[in-house]
């Protein structure tokens, strides 16, 4: 089964600034992928490349095995929910379903209707008059009504109240349980921790970290112990982040081997801590002694 998204040194430039540079990723299918990073890190750019709204300046990107947005067949396989949930404010809820039916040969009216009914939306109400949560649900209904294989969402819950956010995420998880591959970008790490089993961390237009959450967490450890020199760490440990007081050193390391030095207290790392460390770390090459050329998928 082809990867959900596969990129090879893909980059996008606007004028002189690179929004995304040299990104190489392989996102396996059947996952709920969290794309995290600060505002301006390149999340939207990457997602827009994946749905064909943008074309890469360099490199390649393949979605479900084919170039994005190339033709009607490819467009039908990928559902998209853009940032701030754009809808036609003068069209009603029912009109939006009609839009879905007219523009998508593979439209399943029952699925879309079921979602609308479940959320309690009135088909005759104008989209402009809906609340944030209702808009998100309507857009979701339109996106999945065409029965896509992959659903991409750009910060879908950022502006929703906590209840609407929880309901939306729960609905997404139900879709994931049915086998839909999902990629969603978010800067709310708590949500990512709950719902995502694969993670991509972007910072400054580059991929800092990517991989299955379980594997990433298993491969990193927090070491606490008496103050010492990070360059003395064994070669198979890459120091991602370090803090020192005059007596104590704390390091986040990436390693495949167990930590044998008894002077260290070894603990697991939480997802939020891990993501923040990679977002804050300077460009990969300068971290720690064993300069890993790129911090990518952890195998």
């Amino acid at each position, binding site marked *: 089964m082809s990867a959900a998204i596969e990129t090879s040194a893909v980059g996008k430039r606007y004028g002189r600034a690179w929004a995304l540079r040299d990104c190489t990723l392989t996102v396996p299918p059947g996952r709920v992928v969290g794309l995290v990073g600060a505002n301006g890190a390149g999340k939207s750019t990457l997602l827009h490349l994946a749905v064909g709204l943008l074309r890469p300046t360099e490199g390649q990107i393949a979605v479900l095995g084919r170039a994005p947005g190339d033709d009607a067949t490819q467009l039908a396989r990928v559902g998209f929910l853009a940032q701030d949930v754009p809808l036609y404010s003068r069209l009603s809820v029912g009109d939006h379903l009609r839009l879905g039916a007219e523009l998508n040969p593979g439209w399943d009216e029952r699925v879309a209707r079921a979602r609308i009914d479940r959320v309690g939306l009135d088909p005759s109400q104008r989209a402009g008059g809906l609340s944030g949560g209702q808009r998100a649900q309507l857009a979701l209904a339109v996106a999945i009504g065409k029965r896509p294989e992959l659903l991409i969402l750009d910060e879908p819950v950022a502006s929703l109240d906590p209840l609407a956010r929880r309901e939306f995420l*729960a609905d997404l998880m139900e879709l994931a349980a049915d086998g839909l591959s999902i990629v969603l970008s978010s800067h709310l790490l708590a949500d990512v921790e*709950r719902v995502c089993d694969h993670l991509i961390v972007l910072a400054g237009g580059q991929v800092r970290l990517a991989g299955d959450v379980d594997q990433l967490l298993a491969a990193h450890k927090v070491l606490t112990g008496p103050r010492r020199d990070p360059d003395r760490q064994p070669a198979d440990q890459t120091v991602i982040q370090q803090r020192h007081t005059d007596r104590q050193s704390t390091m986040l390391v990436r390693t495949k081997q*167990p930590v044998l030095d008894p002077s260290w207290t070894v603990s697991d790392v*939480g997802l939020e801590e891990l993501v923040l460390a990679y977002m804050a770390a300077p460009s990969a090459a300068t971290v720690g002694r064993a300069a890993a050329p790129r911090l990518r998928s952890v195998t």
Partner: protein
Amino acid sequence: MIEFRIEPTTGVSPYRQLVHQVRQALLLGVLREGDQLPTVKEVVAAVAINPNTVLKAYRELEFEGLVEGRPGVGTFVTRSLVDSSLAAHAELRKDLSGWLEKARRAGLDDDSIAALFESTFRSGRNEGVA
């Protein structure tokens, strides 16, 4: 039917919390032999966590012999913990009381005892993980 709750702030991973809650339910008799666990879809609809987390929890419970997955039907409880665990608990409780007495006679206060337990517990777990 059991209802799950995920507490994100406890530092315990969601899948562990699910496993723990099923075990609790079995201990308390809320779940009995033959009862069906909620489907993966039902759990994620209620609790908004990744379906793989639920699958992992159910797999672990199956590995422990507590439940059994029947394809196309659901996941069912195969063993009750009510009786067997009580006996084991009593034994362990006695051992634990003895150890606690020894620790206090050695001069450890509450915090030292807790720290000693934590670090031994963790290192015992890590040995299995790394």
